[in-house]
């Protein structure tokens, strides 16, 4: 303990120092301080555990309910195809039933204002069962639903920006099986298509290929 200035401690100062030294807080104050600290730590600990639990629940909720992909970020085609199947499987509402070309074009302009809608060659003249726009993994698309010849439905996602999906080639459609669902993704000019259909995977694959050969003439 440093001595402030011993030369200035006269008799009066010494007496004052001594008297102030008699002011004793006692053991009660020390115990009160430490007890308060420990109680505070316990409350802090419980609060921290509660906060962690809430944070974990929040993250789980977000993971379950929101897309993880930030707007503008590229998405793997396989991921998009899987999530597209989940979207279809979960059930959805259509914006329009049996839409004409103008309805499809107008709806497409809401997500791609400067782009003309390009449907696969032989589907261009087929009347869809319904349509709507959809945002999956942060990628906006026009969803057009068709009835196939066997009564199954074909759900076609039309994506105007091919740069948004990774791993889609123009030459061959990529097939993915998801239980009784099957999906295919391919690119034509500056548009990416993702098709989703139900049924036996082998049969659906054959169906899509068959339809592809007939409807989508660029499929080899």
């Amino acid at each position, binding site marked *: 303990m*440093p001595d402030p200035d011993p030369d200035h401690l006269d008799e009066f100062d010494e007496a*004052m120092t001594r008297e*102030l030294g008699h*002011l004793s*807080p*006692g053991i*009660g*104050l020390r115990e009160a301080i430490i007890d308060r*600290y420990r109680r*505070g730590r316990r409350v802090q600990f419980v609060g921290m555990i509660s906060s962690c639990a809430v944070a974990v629940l929040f993250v789980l909720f977000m993971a379950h309910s929101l897309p993880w992909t930030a707007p503008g970020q590229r998405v793997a085609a396989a991921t998009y195809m899987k999530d597209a199947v989940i979207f279809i499987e979960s059930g959805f509402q259509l914006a329009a039933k049996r839409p004409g070309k103008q309805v499809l074009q107008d709806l497409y302009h809401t997500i791609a204002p400067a782009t003309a809608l390009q449907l696969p060659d032989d589907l261009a003249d087929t009347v869809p069962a319904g349509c709507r726009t959809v945002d999956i993994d942060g990628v906006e698309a026009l969803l057009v639903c068709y009835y196939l010849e066997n009564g199954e439905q074909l759900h076609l996602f039309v994506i105007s920006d091919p740069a948004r999906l990774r791993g889609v080639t123009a030459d061959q459609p990529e097939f993915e099986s998801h239980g009784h669902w099957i999906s295919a993704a391919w690119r034509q000019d500056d548009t990416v298509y993702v098709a989703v259909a139900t049924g036996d995977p082998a049969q659906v694959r054959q169906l899509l290929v068959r339809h592809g050969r007939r409807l989508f003439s660029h499929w080899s």
Partner: protein
Amino acid sequence: MTSKEFSAIVDEHYEGLYRFACSLTGNQPDGADLVQQTFLIWAKKHWQLRDKSKTKTWLFTTLRREFLRGHKRRAKMFAETEENNPANEGVVQADQDQHLDATLVLEKMNQLPLEYREPLCLFYLKEFSYQEIAELLEVPIGTIMSRLSRAKKQLRHKLDHA
């Protein structure tokens, strides 16, 4: 900070802080409250202090700031008698019978202006040098010297006429 580390800091500083707090508030219950509040702040904000050698100065400075912040509230509490303040029983165990002089000194010190009371108490605590007192109170060392001189003179006068 572990409980053991916190207890070590309390053991080292709580008596000095208590005497300084009593001289600021003019009474022991409020002084004890002020010390508790100071250590509560220390528990929450000690991580802000990078140089641990400054812990003592940090504690005394924080205590003084807390006092200045709640000066009006404490002045009101000072008007209450200790008997009317059962919340403080069992916390402060000062032996008033044996140390009536200490109580008298505290009472007379409390009649001094705050600007005199602060350096005087820090000086008598023998915890700080003049330079450290000046830094703690954020005034030049020359000002501290002159205030101490006047404070002692006034305190001596008040005690002589007590």
